[in-house]
């Protein structure tokens, strides 16, 4: 857990909500849901030590391993 990154993302998320919320009052509920879900994913991800963690990028990389080996030759 990296508190610095987490708190700065939290501040940014708060700022985004403050900026965006008044503008999207009229938008359908779905928009609001998507808005908050994405922000929430971003906030959750910021709690991890992303550079040293497996994730989609690493999975794809292992999926394409044979090609990677071909290119390393």
């Amino acid at each position, binding site marked *: 857990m990296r508190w610095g990154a987490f708190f700065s993302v939290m501040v940014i998320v708060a700022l985004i909500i403050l900026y965006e919320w008044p503008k999207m009052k009229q938008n359908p509920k779905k928009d609001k849901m998507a808005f908050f879900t994405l922000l929430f994913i971003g906030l959750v991800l910021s709690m991890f030590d992303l550079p040293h963690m497996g994730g989609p990028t690493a999975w794809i*990389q292992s999926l394409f391993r044979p090609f990677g080996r071909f290119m390393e030759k």
Partner: protein
Amino acid sequence: MEKGKISSLQMAIMMYPAIVATAILGVPSITAKYAKTDLWLSPILASFLGYATVYIAYKLHKHYPKETVIQFSEHIMGRFAGKILGFLFCFFYIQVAGLIVREYAEFVVDSFLVNTPISVIMGSIIFLCALTVYGGLEVLGRAAQVFFPIFILAIFFFSIFLGPDFEWKNIFPILGNGVMPPIKGGIVPGGWFTEFFLISFLLPFLADQKKGMKYGMMTVFVVTMTLVLINLIVLFVLGPATSFKVYPLMSVARYISLADFFEHLESFIMAVWIVGAFIKLSVFYYAAALSTAQWLNLSNYRPIVWPIGILILEFSFWSLPNTMGLERYLVGTFPLFALLIQTIIPLFLLMMASIRKRKRQASQ
């Protein structure tokens, strides 16, 4: 969703830096590693992927003129499979945008702002691009229009200023080791050329849709020529040392020296390059935001522009502990992954679409 309209020339002007900006940074070195003195042939070979991608994207656009790939993949594949494909596209563009930010920031930190935290550099460029994307496609198109001449002029003057330092003979031997090296060297630029599939997100908003194909193809050609030119410049100046440089273009820019006082031009080149990177990131950012909004059936993509910025920032770090890891990904995974997502899947969609159309016509 997107009410703005752009002209096909604007599309071409947006696509040009969207491919070239990072393709001139580290790619010449990677190409040189495989192709040696034939590195200038590789972009020509790779460009065929670009032509193919533009052709596929345009044909798909013909079938569904008002929709982007996220929407028509649902029509072609059915709702469920279409949603899965749509998710792949959303993920792909967010992830690639992350990679671009990382490439950009590592370069800036490496060469100029050594002490600045990398997240600040990333944050500031994402902030800027988010504002542009928030403004909409027309704003993006006009921004590209403003900066494009600067970018082109810089490359032009750059090649003239380096003229005295060219060692023309570095180009020999041509095809000295057979045709395989340039082909292998073309794989990585090929990954960049598949990015032309981005026009799929722009074609529905063209004011003059008929010219889309023409301008798309033209852009591929101009991009190819630019990459050939840059690769030749790098080869003429650096020779066999090209593959040793991480940023050959930058090394070459530092080499400019005219009349003993007109030198140290790298800050200028850097500034111009950042303009290109800004357009590139904005186009990818736009594609990511638009595709996510369409995938979720939102009424507008603007509310999710900022949240996606955070995701892009996080993807730029995710599983990439260092620059070497980034380069390994760009060489060993990205070309094939990009080809799969941006050329092979669309090709498959196109085939399905034409089969469906024929069936429909037969049943009528």
